């Protein structure tokens, strides 16, 4: 953690809150898209 904060653990927590029926690949895809959107 430098100049910021490592979100890895927090993102894992959020993934657990997503619907259990959602495939893991879709959850990771959503996180990846979120990272890109928030970086624009």
């Amino acid at each position: 953690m430098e100049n910021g904060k490592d979100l890895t653990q927090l993102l894992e927590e959020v993934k657990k809150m997503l619907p259990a029926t959602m495939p893991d690949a879709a959850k990771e895809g959503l996180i990846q898209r979120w990272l890109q959107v928030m970086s624009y």
Partner: protein
Amino acid sequence: MKCYQGMGYAPFFPSPDGVTLQADDSSKILVDDEIDRFIEDPTKFLREVAIARRYPSLQKESPEDIKALTGSIMGLVDFISRSANRQKALEEVYQTPMILNSTSIQPPLDICLLYRGFVKGMGDLYRRPKQVQAAAEAIMPWYMPPAPKMPDFPWVFSTFLTPDYLNPRQYEKFLWPTYKKLAEAYSAAGCPLLVPYEGRWDKKCELFAELPKGTFVVYLQCSEEQFFEAQAKIGDKVALIYPFPLEMLKNGTKEEVVKHTKEVIDRAGTTGVIMGTSHVLNSPKDVNHDNLKALSDVCLNYRP
């Protein structure tokens, strides 16, 4: 978008007209001494450093940080869901075919310049060219096709931000290599890229013809005469959208529209050309609906 709400910072802000959005150029994503780390693993860098630094709400103590993060991600889910509903309504209620699928790509160089901020990023092309090229290569996998084979319609949306600010040599050196690899991958997957190309496109646009026929559908910002110049240069490889004059569609007579449409078809042919308008239609009053129907009828039925 709701994903920015409650995050303590919004990278976009409205212009004085209250409608058009502008991007904040103080990107806060990538500072000078972090570029090599970014190149090593861009996704890891966003997760571990850049995103939390950019959004103050993520710096808060638990559980405020997780609350902000959850709200932001659910805001994106809401946006995706609304977009899907809007598309469904357009298709089912208004019988409007969707020409774009949910995938969109950008030249990796555009993202590098965005992350550095435009002012710093343009300077990087001179100060640290090898790092810029390496960063573009590192980002490129984000935009690869989501599947080895894709339907050939709807198309993938491919926007360009920076070509008008690059000279032809910079364009070929920094933007084209990684973008070309992406275009080749979509060509192999079988899904064309729709490219709206603004500004000066002449020499740069000719590189599109390096790719196999059917890779690109390009909407050039150009006059009718410039369209024919472009068609002569790249029309056998690239599908081009014709800029039918919007002023005629709005203010001309139906007879004028029919006559001009036939003239266009006579000259442009019926292969590799898609009839479009010289400016985007943003509201119902932008066009005379009877004229638009006449244009459509001629395109469907007239063959020279």
